[in-house]
Protein backbone atom coordinates (compact mmCIF):
# COMPACT_ATOMS: atom_id res chain seq x y z
CA UNK A 1 0.00 0.00 0.00
CA UNK A 2 2.73 2.39 0.95
CA UNK A 3 4.59 1.77 -2.28
CA UNK A 4 1.46 2.53 -4.22
CA UNK A 5 1.21 5.83 -2.43
CA UNK A 6 4.81 6.66 -3.17
CA UNK A 7 4.36 5.90 -6.84
CA UNK A 8 1.31 8.09 -6.87
CA UNK A 9 3.30 10.94 -5.34
CA UNK A 10 6.09 10.50 -7.77
CA UNK A 11 3.70 10.63 -10.64
CA UNK A 12 1.87 13.63 -9.29
CA UNK A 13 4.95 15.58 -8.33
CA UNK A 14 7.29 14.87 -11.18
CA UNK A 15 5.22 16.01 -14.12
CA UNK A 16 6.16 19.62 -13.71
CA UNK A 17 9.84 18.76 -13.96
CA UNK A 18 10.55 20.05 -10.46
CA UNK A 19 14.14 20.30 -9.48
CA UNK A 20 15.47 21.42 -6.19
CA UNK A 21 17.24 24.45 -7.58
CA UNK A 22 14.34 25.58 -9.76
CA UNK A 23 11.89 25.29 -6.92
CA UNK A 24 14.13 27.05 -4.49
CA UNK A 25 14.89 29.80 -6.95
CA UNK A 26 11.26 30.33 -7.71
CA UNK A 27 10.05 30.27 -4.16
CA UNK A 28 12.07 32.75 -2.24
CA UNK A 29 13.70 35.71 -3.81
CA UNK A 30 15.22 36.76 -0.51
CA UNK A 31 17.06 33.49 -0.34
CA UNK A 32 17.89 33.19 -3.98
CA UNK A 33 21.50 34.19 -3.70
CA UNK A 34 22.15 31.64 -1.00
CA UNK A 35 20.10 28.88 -2.52
CA UNK A 36 21.60 29.18 -5.93
CA UNK A 37 24.95 28.59 -4.34
CA UNK A 38 23.94 24.96 -4.14
CA UNK A 39 26.52 22.17 -4.09
CA UNK A 40 26.62 22.00 -7.85
CA UNK A 41 27.87 25.57 -7.89
CA UNK A 42 30.27 25.25 -5.00
CA UNK A 43 33.63 26.88 -5.55
CA UNK A 44 36.86 25.39 -4.45
CA UNK A 45 38.86 26.62 -1.52
CA UNK A 46 41.12 29.58 -1.86
CA UNK A 47 44.19 28.28 -3.68
CA UNK A 48 47.16 27.79 -1.41
CA UNK A 49 45.25 28.02 1.85
CA UNK A 50 44.86 24.96 4.01
CA UNK A 51 41.70 24.11 5.88
CA UNK A 52 41.98 25.10 9.53
CA UNK A 53 40.94 22.24 11.82
CA UNK A 54 40.53 23.06 15.50
CA UNK A 55 40.28 20.19 17.95
CA UNK A 56 39.09 21.57 21.28
CA UNK A 57 39.77 19.28 24.23
CA UNK A 58 36.98 20.35 26.54
CA UNK A 59 37.20 19.87 30.26
CA UNK A 60 40.86 20.96 30.58
CA UNK A 61 43.23 18.33 29.28
CA UNK A 62 46.17 17.58 31.57
CA UNK A 63 49.21 18.66 29.57
CA UNK A 64 51.58 17.48 32.28
CA UNK A 65 50.44 13.93 31.62
CA UNK A 66 50.10 14.14 27.85
CA UNK A 67 53.51 15.72 27.33
CA UNK A 68 55.48 14.81 30.42
CA UNK A 69 58.26 17.18 31.51
CA UNK A 70 60.12 14.27 32.99
CA UNK A 71 63.33 16.29 33.05
CA UNK A 72 61.85 18.52 35.75
CA UNK A 73 62.32 16.60 39.01
CA UNK A 74 59.69 18.73 40.73
CA UNK A 75 57.02 16.92 38.70
CA UNK A 76 57.50 13.79 40.78
CA UNK A 77 57.28 15.72 44.04
CA UNK A 78 54.03 17.34 42.98
CA UNK A 79 52.55 14.12 41.64
CA UNK A 80 54.01 11.21 43.54
CA UNK A 81 51.36 8.69 42.47
CA UNK A 82 50.05 9.81 39.09
CA UNK A 83 52.97 11.29 37.17
CA UNK A 84 54.11 9.31 34.16
CA UNK A 85 57.58 8.02 34.93
CA UNK A 86 60.66 8.92 32.87
CA UNK A 87 61.61 6.94 29.77
CA UNK A 88 63.01 3.53 30.56
CA UNK A 89 60.84 2.98 33.62
CA UNK A 90 57.88 0.66 33.53
CA UNK A 91 55.11 2.45 31.63
CA UNK A 92 57.56 5.30 31.26
CA UNK A 93 57.22 8.27 28.93
CA UNK A 94 58.22 8.01 25.28
CA UNK A 95 61.15 10.35 24.92
CA UNK A 96 60.82 13.35 22.63
CA UNK A 97 63.89 15.49 23.24
CA UNK A 98 65.65 14.51 26.42
CA UNK A 99 63.38 16.62 28.64
CA UNK A 100 59.82 16.00 27.46
CA UNK A 101 58.17 12.69 26.70
CA UNK A 102 54.78 11.49 25.58
CA UNK A 103 52.46 9.48 27.78
CA UNK A 104 52.50 5.89 26.52
CA UNK A 105 48.86 6.20 25.52
CA UNK A 106 49.80 9.07 23.22
CA UNK A 107 52.29 6.93 21.29
CA UNK A 108 50.47 7.38 17.94
CA UNK A 109 51.66 10.98 17.94
CA UNK A 110 55.18 9.73 17.34
CA UNK A 111 54.27 9.05 13.70
CA UNK A 112 53.64 12.67 12.66
CA UNK A 113 56.17 13.94 15.21
CA UNK A 114 58.90 11.74 13.83
CA UNK A 115 58.13 12.89 10.30
CA UNK A 116 58.44 16.51 11.34
CA UNK A 117 54.77 17.31 10.85
CA UNK A 118 53.63 17.57 14.47
CA UNK A 119 54.81 20.23 16.87
CA UNK A 120 54.08 20.41 20.56
CA UNK A 121 53.88 23.70 22.40
CA UNK A 122 54.20 23.53 26.16
CA UNK A 123 53.50 25.88 29.03
CA UNK A 124 51.05 27.51 26.64
CA UNK A 125 47.51 28.71 26.93
CA UNK A 126 45.19 31.57 27.65
CA UNK A 127 46.49 34.06 30.17
CA UNK A 128 43.03 34.68 31.60
CA UNK A 129 42.94 33.91 35.31
CA UNK A 130 39.60 32.11 35.52
CA UNK A 131 39.30 28.54 36.72
CA UNK A 132 35.78 28.21 35.34
CA UNK A 133 35.56 26.02 32.25
CA UNK A 134 32.83 28.16 30.77
CA UNK A 135 34.50 31.50 31.36
CA UNK A 136 37.69 30.00 29.95
CA UNK A 137 35.90 28.77 26.82
CA UNK A 138 34.61 32.27 26.24
CA UNK A 139 37.98 33.84 26.93
CA UNK A 140 39.82 31.52 24.61
CA UNK A 141 37.30 31.09 21.82
CA UNK A 142 36.14 34.67 21.60
CA UNK A 143 39.65 36.04 22.28
CA UNK A 144 38.13 39.36 23.14
CA UNK A 145 39.61 40.91 26.28
CA UNK A 146 37.39 43.96 25.84
CA UNK A 147 34.21 41.92 25.97
CA UNK A 148 32.75 44.17 23.31
CA UNK A 149 32.91 41.76 20.38
CA UNK A 150 30.27 39.13 19.84
CA UNK A 151 32.21 36.90 17.51
CA UNK A 152 34.73 34.09 17.84
CA UNK A 153 38.31 34.65 16.75
CA UNK A 154 37.95 32.21 13.86
CA UNK A 155 34.77 34.00 12.78
CA UNK A 156 36.67 37.27 12.62
CA UNK A 157 39.28 35.65 10.40
CA UNK A 158 36.54 34.33 8.09
CA UNK A 159 34.80 37.69 8.01
CA UNK A 160 37.92 39.42 6.77
CA UNK A 161 39.08 36.63 4.44
CA UNK A 162 36.54 36.97 1.68
CA UNK A 163 36.64 33.89 -0.56
CA UNK A 164 37.32 34.47 -4.26
CA UNK A 165 33.90 33.09 -5.18
CA UNK A 166 30.71 32.35 -3.25
CA UNK A 167 30.53 29.03 -1.48
CA UNK A 168 27.69 27.26 0.28
CA UNK A 169 29.42 26.63 3.57
CA UNK A 170 32.70 28.13 4.77
CA UNK A 171 32.94 26.66 8.23
CA UNK A 172 31.56 23.61 9.98
CA UNK A 173 31.29 23.04 13.69
CA UNK A 174 31.17 19.26 13.83
CA UNK A 175 28.89 19.39 16.80
CA UNK A 176 25.25 19.70 17.74
CA UNK A 177 25.86 23.31 18.71
CA UNK A 178 28.12 25.76 16.91
CA UNK A 179 31.18 26.35 19.07
CA UNK A 180 31.98 29.85 20.34
CA UNK A 181 35.06 29.88 18.11
CA UNK A 182 32.67 30.15 15.15
CA UNK A 183 30.14 32.45 16.76
CA UNK A 184 29.02 34.96 14.16
CA UNK A 185 30.93 33.30 11.34
CA UNK A 186 29.60 33.68 7.80
CA UNK A 187 28.14 30.57 6.19
CA UNK A 188 28.95 28.49 9.27
CA UNK A 189 26.88 25.50 10.27
CA UNK A 190 26.80 23.05 13.14
CA UNK A 191 26.76 19.63 11.53
CA UNK A 192 27.04 16.82 14.07
CA UNK A 193 27.20 14.09 11.43
CA UNK A 194 28.22 15.00 7.89
CA UNK A 195 26.99 11.66 6.59
CA UNK A 196 23.45 12.60 7.60
CA UNK A 197 23.51 16.08 6.13
CA UNK A 198 20.81 15.20 3.63
CA UNK A 199 17.28 16.43 3.41
CA UNK A 200 15.02 13.92 5.13
CA UNK A 201 11.66 12.49 4.24
CA UNK A 202 9.87 11.53 1.05
CA UNK A 203 12.06 12.00 -2.01
CA UNK A 204 9.07 12.81 -4.18
CA UNK A 205 8.21 15.92 -2.14
CA UNK A 206 11.73 16.84 -1.10
CA UNK A 207 12.02 19.78 -3.46
CA UNK A 208 8.64 21.18 -2.48
CA UNK A 209 9.37 20.90 1.20
CA UNK A 210 12.77 22.54 0.77
CA UNK A 211 11.11 25.36 -1.12
CA UNK A 212 8.57 25.80 1.67
CA UNK A 213 11.34 25.92 4.25
CA UNK A 214 13.33 28.47 2.28
CA UNK A 215 10.24 30.60 1.83
CA UNK A 216 9.14 30.58 5.44
CA UNK A 217 12.58 30.85 7.03
CA UNK A 218 13.81 33.62 4.76
CA UNK A 219 12.18 36.24 6.97
CA UNK A 220 13.27 34.67 10.27
CA UNK A 221 15.85 36.74 12.15
CA UNK A 222 19.39 35.54 12.79
CA UNK A 223 20.60 33.07 13.69
CA UNK A 224 17.64 30.86 12.71
CA UNK A 225 16.77 32.29 9.30
CA UNK A 226 20.29 32.45 7.85
CA UNK A 227 21.09 29.04 9.33
CA UNK A 228 18.05 27.51 7.63
CA UNK A 229 18.96 28.99 4.27
CA UNK A 230 22.61 28.00 4.65
CA UNK A 231 21.50 24.50 5.59
CA UNK A 232 19.36 24.11 2.49
CA UNK A 233 22.10 25.54 0.29
CA UNK A 234 24.74 23.23 1.72
CA UNK A 235 22.69 20.02 1.73
CA UNK A 236 24.63 16.93 0.70
CA UNK A 237 27.93 18.81 1.16
CA UNK A 238 28.87 18.73 -2.48
CA UNK A 239 27.74 15.15 -2.91
CA UNK A 240 30.62 13.73 -0.88
CA UNK A 241 29.80 10.13 0.00
CA UNK A 242 30.96 10.07 3.59
CA UNK A 243 29.57 6.62 4.18
CA UNK A 244 31.59 5.03 1.39
CA UNK A 245 34.73 7.03 2.08
CA UNK A 246 37.84 4.84 2.31
CA UNK A 247 40.82 6.43 4.08
CA UNK A 248 44.15 6.30 2.30
CA UNK A 249 47.24 4.43 3.42
CA UNK A 250 45.22 1.95 5.43
CA UNK A 251 44.48 4.58 8.04
CA UNK A 252 42.12 3.29 10.71
CA UNK A 253 40.17 5.83 12.74
CA UNK A 254 38.87 4.92 16.19
CA UNK A 255 35.33 3.65 16.09
CA UNK A 256 34.06 6.56 18.15
CA UNK A 257 32.15 9.74 17.48
CA UNK A 258 35.40 11.71 17.51
CA UNK A 259 37.07 9.20 15.19
CA UNK A 260 34.15 9.41 12.80
CA UNK A 261 34.27 13.20 12.84
CA UNK A 262 37.97 13.24 12.00
CA UNK A 263 37.41 10.73 9.20
CA UNK A 264 34.60 12.81 7.77
CA UNK A 265 36.77 15.90 8.02
CA UNK A 266 39.44 14.21 5.91
CA UNK A 267 36.81 13.30 3.31
CA UNK A 268 35.47 16.86 3.43
CA UNK A 269 38.90 18.38 2.81
CA UNK A 270 39.57 16.04 -0.09
CA UNK A 271 36.11 16.85 -1.44
CA UNK A 272 37.29 20.44 -1.80
CA UNK A 273 33.90 22.16 -1.63
CA UNK A 274 35.18 25.43 -0.25
CA UNK A 275 35.06 24.77 3.48
CA UNK A 276 37.82 26.81 5.14
CA UNK A 277 37.51 25.84 8.79
CA UNK A 278 36.31 22.89 10.86
CA UNK A 279 35.95 22.78 14.63
CA UNK A 280 35.65 19.48 16.48
CA UNK A 281 35.37 18.84 20.21
CA UNK A 282 36.59 15.97 22.31
CA UNK A 283 35.01 16.18 25.72
CA UNK A 284 35.62 14.49 29.05
CA UNK A 285 39.05 15.68 30.20
CA UNK A 286 37.88 17.10 33.54
CA UNK A 287 39.43 14.29 35.56
CA UNK A 288 39.36 15.45 39.17
CA UNK A 289 39.54 11.88 40.39
CA UNK A 290 41.22 8.70 39.19
CA UNK A 291 43.22 10.29 36.42
CA UNK A 292 44.47 6.95 35.16
CA UNK A 293 47.37 8.09 32.98
CA UNK A 294 48.45 4.53 32.12
CA UNK A 295 45.29 2.46 32.00
CA UNK A 296 42.46 4.66 33.20
CA UNK A 297 40.32 7.54 31.94
CA UNK A 298 43.19 9.73 30.79
CA UNK A 299 44.86 6.90 28.93
CA UNK A 300 41.60 6.07 27.22
CA UNK A 301 41.04 9.65 26.10
CA UNK A 302 44.63 9.99 24.92
CA UNK A 303 44.31 6.77 23.00
CA UNK A 304 41.18 7.99 21.24
CA UNK A 305 42.62 11.42 20.51
CA UNK A 306 46.01 10.35 19.28
CA UNK A 307 44.86 7.35 17.23
CA UNK A 308 42.42 9.67 15.46
CA UNK A 309 45.16 12.22 14.83
CA UNK A 310 47.54 9.56 13.55
CA UNK A 311 44.85 8.13 11.27
CA UNK A 312 44.06 11.60 9.96
CA UNK A 313 47.75 12.21 9.35
CA UNK A 314 48.20 8.95 7.42
CA UNK A 315 44.96 9.46 5.53
CA UNK A 316 46.05 12.95 4.52
CA UNK A 317 49.69 12.10 3.89
CA UNK A 318 49.40 13.02 0.22
CA UNK A 319 47.55 16.21 1.13
CA UNK A 320 49.78 17.69 3.79
CA UNK A 321 49.46 21.23 2.48
CA UNK A 322 45.67 21.14 2.58
CA UNK A 323 45.14 21.28 6.33
CA UNK A 324 46.52 22.42 9.62
CA UNK A 325 45.23 20.86 12.82
CA UNK A 326 45.52 22.64 16.15
CA UNK A 327 44.57 20.91 19.42
CA UNK A 328 44.04 23.06 22.47
CA UNK A 329 42.21 23.11 25.78
CA UNK A 330 40.74 25.88 27.91
CA UNK A 331 43.38 25.56 30.63
CA UNK A 332 45.69 22.98 32.16
CA UNK A 333 45.56 21.20 35.49
CA UNK A 334 47.16 22.15 38.79
CA UNK A 335 50.68 20.93 39.36
CA UNK A 336 49.81 19.10 42.55
CA UNK A 337 47.81 15.90 42.39
CA UNK A 338 44.80 15.86 44.69
CA UNK A 339 43.69 13.32 47.29
CA UNK A 340 41.51 11.52 44.75
CA UNK A 341 44.41 10.67 42.45
CA UNK A 342 43.23 13.34 40.05
CA UNK A 343 44.06 16.93 39.30
CA UNK A 344 42.13 20.16 39.62
CA UNK A 345 41.80 23.21 37.43
CA UNK A 346 45.11 24.86 36.63
CA UNK A 347 46.65 27.18 34.10
CA UNK A 348 49.49 26.39 31.63
CA UNK A 349 49.02 23.49 29.23
CA UNK A 350 50.26 21.77 26.09
CA UNK A 351 49.03 22.45 22.57
CA UNK A 352 49.53 20.41 19.39
CA UNK A 353 49.82 21.56 15.79
CA UNK A 354 49.97 19.22 12.81
CA UNK A 355 50.29 19.74 9.08
CA UNK A 356 52.68 19.96 6.17
CA UNK A 357 53.78 23.48 7.00
CA UNK A 358 54.03 22.97 10.72
CA UNK A 359 57.57 23.18 11.99
CA UNK A 360 57.22 19.79 13.60
CA UNK A 361 59.39 17.26 15.33
CA UNK A 362 60.01 19.61 18.22
CA UNK A 363 58.62 20.79 21.53
CA UNK A 364 58.39 24.54 21.51
CA UNK A 365 58.65 25.73 25.08
CA UNK A 366 60.10 28.35 27.32
CA UNK A 367 59.84 26.03 30.29
CA UNK A 368 59.00 27.95 33.46
CA UNK A 369 59.67 25.08 35.86
CA UNK A 370 57.53 23.24 38.36
CA UNK A 371 59.36 24.10 41.56
CA UNK A 372 57.47 26.04 44.16
CA UNK A 373 59.06 29.31 43.18
CA UNK A 374 58.10 28.90 39.54
CA UNK A 375 54.51 27.80 39.89
CA UNK A 376 51.84 30.49 39.73
CA UNK A 377 49.22 29.86 42.41
CA UNK A 378 50.21 26.21 42.27
CA UNK A 379 49.89 26.03 38.50
CA UNK A 380 52.23 25.69 35.56
CA UNK A 381 52.90 29.21 34.33
CA UNK A 382 52.07 30.24 30.78
CA UNK A 383 55.08 31.42 28.84
CA UNK A 384 53.55 31.15 25.37
CA UNK A 385 50.19 32.75 24.67
CA UNK A 386 48.00 30.47 22.57
CA UNK A 387 47.22 33.43 20.33
CA UNK A 388 50.88 33.52 19.28
CA UNK A 389 50.52 30.03 17.83
CA UNK A 390 47.20 30.70 16.12
CA UNK A 391 48.33 34.11 14.93
CA UNK A 392 51.52 32.80 13.40
CA UNK A 393 49.56 30.12 11.56
CA UNK A 394 47.10 32.72 10.29
CA UNK A 395 49.88 34.99 9.11
CA UNK A 396 52.08 32.37 7.47
CA UNK A 397 49.57 29.87 6.14
CA UNK A 398 46.46 31.97 5.62
CA UNK A 399 48.03 35.24 4.46
CA UNK A 400 46.62 37.40 7.26
CA UNK A 401 48.43 40.72 7.17
CA UNK A 402 47.19 42.08 10.47
CA UNK A 403 45.98 40.25 13.55
CA UNK A 404 44.60 43.39 15.15
CA UNK A 405 40.94 42.58 14.59
CA UNK A 406 41.30 38.83 15.12
CA UNK A 407 43.20 39.04 18.40
CA UNK A 408 42.56 42.58 19.61
CA UNK A 409 44.79 43.80 22.36
CA UNK A 410 47.34 41.06 21.93
CA UNK A 411 50.97 41.85 21.10
CA UNK A 412 51.89 39.01 18.78
CA UNK A 413 55.17 37.10 19.16
CA UNK A 414 56.33 34.59 16.56
CA UNK A 415 57.14 31.21 18.15
CA UNK A 416 58.43 29.32 15.11
CA UNK A 417 55.41 27.04 14.71
CA UNK A 418 55.43 27.22 10.90
CA UNK A 419 58.10 26.48 8.33
Amino acid at each position, binding site marked *: MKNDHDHAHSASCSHAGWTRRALLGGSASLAAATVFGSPALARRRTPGKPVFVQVFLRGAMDGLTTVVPYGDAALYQLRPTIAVQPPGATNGALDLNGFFGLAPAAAPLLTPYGNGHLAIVHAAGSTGQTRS*HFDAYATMELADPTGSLRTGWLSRYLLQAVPPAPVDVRAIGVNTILQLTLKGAPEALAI*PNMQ*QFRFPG*ALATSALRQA*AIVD*TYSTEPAPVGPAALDTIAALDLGGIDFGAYVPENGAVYPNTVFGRRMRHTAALIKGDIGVEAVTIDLDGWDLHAELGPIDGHMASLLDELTRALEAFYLDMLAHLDRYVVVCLSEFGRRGLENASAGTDHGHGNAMLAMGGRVNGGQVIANWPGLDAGSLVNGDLAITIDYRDILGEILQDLFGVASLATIFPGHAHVNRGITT
Partner: protein
Amino acid sequence: VTPTPPAQLVDAVAAAYTSSGGDIKAMLRVVLARENFRFTAPIVAPKFRRPFHHVVSLFRAMEVRFRLTSPSTPLNTEVLSLLEEMGQVPFDHVQPDGYPDSVDQWGTTLLPRWRFAAILLHNYIGSSISGVFMIRPSDLRARLGFAHDPADRAGLARRMNERFFGGTHSPHETEILQGFIDAYGSFDDTAMFDALALGACLPGFQWY
Protein backbone atom coordinates in the same frame (compact mmCIF):
# COMPACT_ATOMS: atom_id res chain seq x y z
CA VAL B 1 12.24 34.22 37.99
CA THR B 2 14.03 35.41 34.92
CA PRO B 3 16.55 33.94 32.45
CA THR B 4 19.01 36.65 33.48
CA PRO B 5 18.74 37.04 37.26
CA PRO B 6 20.35 40.09 38.85
CA ALA B 7 23.64 39.64 40.67
CA GLN B 8 22.10 40.33 44.09
CA LEU B 9 19.65 37.43 43.68
CA VAL B 10 22.44 35.14 42.50
CA ASP B 11 24.51 36.18 45.49
CA ALA B 12 21.60 35.52 47.84
CA VAL B 13 21.10 32.02 46.43
CA ALA B 14 24.83 31.39 46.64
CA ALA B 15 24.78 32.46 50.29
CA ALA B 16 21.90 30.06 50.93
CA TYR B 17 23.85 27.30 49.23
CA THR B 18 26.87 27.96 51.41
CA SER B 19 25.04 28.35 54.70
CA SER B 20 22.77 25.34 54.16
CA GLY B 21 25.43 23.02 52.84
CA GLY B 22 23.83 22.88 49.42
CA ASP B 23 20.23 22.27 50.50
CA ILE B 24 18.03 22.75 47.44
CA LYS B 25 14.91 23.61 49.45
CA ALA B 26 16.77 26.38 51.21
CA MET B 27 17.90 27.82 47.89
CA LEU B 28 14.43 27.61 46.40
CA ARG B 29 13.02 29.46 49.40
CA VAL B 30 15.28 32.36 48.50
CA VAL B 31 14.38 32.22 44.82
CA LEU B 32 10.65 32.07 45.53
CA ALA B 33 10.60 34.57 48.36
CA ARG B 34 8.11 37.36 47.82
CA GLU B 35 10.73 40.08 47.89
CA ASN B 36 12.67 38.37 45.15
CA PHE B 37 9.71 38.09 42.83
CA ARG B 38 10.12 41.73 42.01
CA PHE B 39 12.85 40.49 39.68
CA THR B 40 10.35 38.49 37.71
CA ALA B 41 10.55 39.31 34.03
CA PRO B 42 7.54 38.23 32.01
CA ILE B 43 8.54 36.44 28.87
CA VAL B 44 7.71 38.97 26.21
CA ALA B 45 9.54 37.23 23.39
CA PRO B 46 9.05 33.62 22.38
CA LYS B 47 11.75 31.11 23.17
CA PHE B 48 13.27 28.64 20.78
CA ARG B 49 12.37 25.07 21.63
CA ARG B 50 15.31 22.96 22.67
CA PRO B 51 15.48 19.55 20.98
CA PHE B 52 13.87 17.72 23.89
CA HIS B 53 11.04 20.23 23.95
CA HIS B 54 10.64 19.89 20.19
CA VAL B 55 10.39 16.12 20.48
CA VAL B 56 7.91 16.22 23.33
CA SER B 57 5.80 18.84 21.57
CA LEU B 58 5.55 16.68 18.49
CA PHE B 59 4.82 13.58 20.55
CA ARG B 60 1.99 15.35 22.35
CA ALA B 61 0.59 16.72 19.11
CA MET B 62 0.57 13.21 17.66
CA GLU B 63 -0.80 11.59 20.83
CA VAL B 64 2.22 9.33 21.06
CA ARG B 65 2.19 6.26 23.28
CA PHE B 66 5.24 4.18 24.10
CA ARG B 67 5.76 0.49 24.41
CA LEU B 68 8.93 0.07 26.43
CA THR B 69 11.25 -2.76 25.59
CA SER B 70 11.67 -3.57 29.25
CA PRO B 71 10.80 -2.02 32.60
CA SER B 72 14.49 -1.42 33.18
CA THR B 73 14.71 0.72 30.05
CA PRO B 74 12.58 3.72 30.92
CA LEU B 75 13.31 5.58 27.70
CA ASN B 76 12.89 4.46 24.14
CA THR B 77 16.39 3.80 22.85
CA GLU B 78 15.59 4.86 19.31
CA VAL B 79 14.19 8.15 20.53
CA LEU B 80 17.30 8.58 22.66
CA SER B 81 19.42 8.02 19.58
CA LEU B 82 17.49 10.71 17.72
CA LEU B 83 17.83 13.06 20.69
CA GLU B 84 21.55 12.39 20.62
CA GLU B 85 21.65 13.49 17.00
CA MET B 86 19.90 16.66 18.04
CA GLY B 87 22.28 17.17 20.96
CA GLN B 88 20.04 16.85 24.00
CA VAL B 89 19.93 13.43 25.59
CA PRO B 90 18.33 13.84 29.04
CA PHE B 91 20.82 13.87 31.92
CA ASP B 92 23.75 13.42 29.54
CA HIS B 93 25.29 16.89 29.44
CA VAL B 94 28.95 16.34 30.31
CA GLN B 95 29.73 19.80 31.62
CA PRO B 96 28.14 20.93 34.90
CA ASP B 97 26.36 23.96 33.45
CA GLY B 98 23.36 22.13 32.00
CA TYR B 99 22.17 22.26 28.43
CA PRO B 100 22.12 25.77 26.99
CA ASP B 101 18.77 27.45 26.67
CA SER B 102 18.94 30.11 24.02
CA VAL B 103 18.33 30.46 20.34
CA ASP B 104 21.98 31.40 19.83
CA GLN B 105 23.00 27.87 20.72
CA TRP B 106 20.20 25.80 19.17
CA GLY B 107 19.09 28.02 16.34
CA THR B 108 21.90 27.05 13.99
CA THR B 109 21.31 23.29 14.09
CA LEU B 110 18.02 22.78 12.31
CA LEU B 111 18.48 19.77 10.07
CA PRO B 112 18.43 17.18 12.91
CA ARG B 113 15.04 18.45 14.13
CA TRP B 114 13.68 18.46 10.58
CA ARG B 115 15.01 14.95 10.27
CA PHE B 116 13.25 13.89 13.47
CA ALA B 117 9.91 15.17 12.20
CA ALA B 118 10.40 13.36 8.92
CA ILE B 119 11.39 10.11 10.58
CA LEU B 120 8.45 10.25 12.96
CA LEU B 121 5.84 11.16 10.39
CA HIS B 122 7.04 9.92 7.03
CA ASN B 123 6.24 6.33 6.17
CA TYR B 124 3.88 6.26 9.11
CA ILE B 125 2.20 2.88 9.22
CA GLY B 126 1.40 2.16 12.83
CA SER B 127 4.84 2.96 14.21
CA SER B 128 7.66 4.69 12.33
CA ILE B 129 9.92 4.53 15.38
CA SER B 130 10.10 1.20 17.15
CA GLY B 131 7.93 1.23 20.25
CA VAL B 132 6.38 4.62 19.44
CA PHE B 133 2.72 4.64 18.46
CA MET B 134 0.87 7.70 17.28
CA ILE B 135 -2.70 8.74 16.64
CA ARG B 136 -4.45 6.34 14.24
CA PRO B 137 -4.90 7.69 10.72
CA SER B 138 -8.69 7.40 11.01
CA ASP B 139 -8.64 9.45 14.21
CA LEU B 140 -6.29 11.89 12.58
CA ARG B 141 -8.64 12.39 9.66
CA ALA B 142 -11.57 12.85 12.01
CA ARG B 143 -9.65 15.41 14.01
CA LEU B 144 -8.75 17.27 10.86
CA GLY B 145 -12.19 17.00 9.30
CA PHE B 146 -10.71 15.28 6.31
CA ALA B 147 -12.37 12.32 4.60
CA HIS B 148 -10.48 12.00 1.33
CA ASP B 149 -12.98 14.28 -0.31
CA PRO B 150 -11.05 16.78 -2.46
CA ALA B 151 -13.25 19.51 -1.03
CA ASP B 152 -11.87 18.70 2.45
CA ARG B 153 -8.45 19.99 1.42
CA ALA B 154 -9.63 23.55 1.62
CA GLY B 155 -8.45 25.02 4.89
CA LEU B 156 -6.61 21.85 5.89
CA ALA B 157 -3.38 23.69 6.76
CA ARG B 158 -5.34 26.05 8.98
CA ARG B 159 -6.95 23.11 10.77
CA MET B 160 -3.58 21.41 11.17
CA ASN B 161 -2.27 24.59 12.74
CA GLU B 162 -5.21 24.88 15.09
CA ARG B 163 -5.48 21.22 16.04
CA PHE B 164 -1.88 19.97 15.95
CA PHE B 165 0.57 22.84 16.04
CA GLY B 166 -1.03 24.94 18.75
CA GLY B 167 -1.57 27.88 16.45
CA THR B 168 2.16 28.46 16.19
CA HIS B 169 2.20 28.86 12.40
CA SER B 170 1.98 32.36 11.00
CA PRO B 171 -0.65 33.09 8.35
CA HIS B 172 2.10 32.98 5.73
CA GLU B 173 3.32 29.60 6.95
CA THR B 174 -0.25 28.32 6.83
CA GLU B 175 -0.54 29.61 3.29
CA ILE B 176 2.69 27.87 2.27
CA LEU B 177 1.59 24.61 3.92
CA GLN B 178 -1.76 24.81 2.16
CA GLY B 179 0.09 25.30 -1.14
CA PHE B 180 2.05 22.16 -0.42
CA ILE B 181 -1.15 20.24 0.28
CA ASP B 182 -2.79 21.55 -2.88
CA ALA B 183 0.22 20.51 -5.00
CA TYR B 184 -0.43 16.84 -4.30
CA GLY B 185 -2.11 14.88 -7.08
CA SER B 186 -3.93 12.61 -4.70
CA PHE B 187 -3.99 13.35 -1.01
CA ASP B 188 -4.04 10.16 1.03
CA ASP B 189 -2.94 9.26 4.55
CA THR B 190 0.74 9.23 3.63
CA ALA B 191 0.36 12.67 2.10
CA MET B 192 -1.39 13.88 5.22
CA PHE B 193 1.53 12.77 7.38
CA ASP B 194 3.97 14.28 4.89
CA ALA B 195 2.19 17.61 5.26
CA LEU B 196 2.28 17.30 9.04
CA ALA B 197 6.02 16.60 8.84
CA LEU B 198 6.49 19.78 6.88
CA GLY B 199 4.34 21.67 9.35
CA ALA B 200 6.56 20.47 12.18
CA CYS B 201 9.60 21.85 10.32
CA LEU B 202 8.23 25.34 9.73
CA PRO B 203 9.67 28.14 11.85
CA GLY B 204 6.58 28.86 13.92
CA PHE B 205 6.59 25.42 15.50
CA GLN B 206 10.19 25.87 16.65
CA TRP B 207 9.18 28.59 19.12
CA TYR B 208 6.93 28.71 22.16
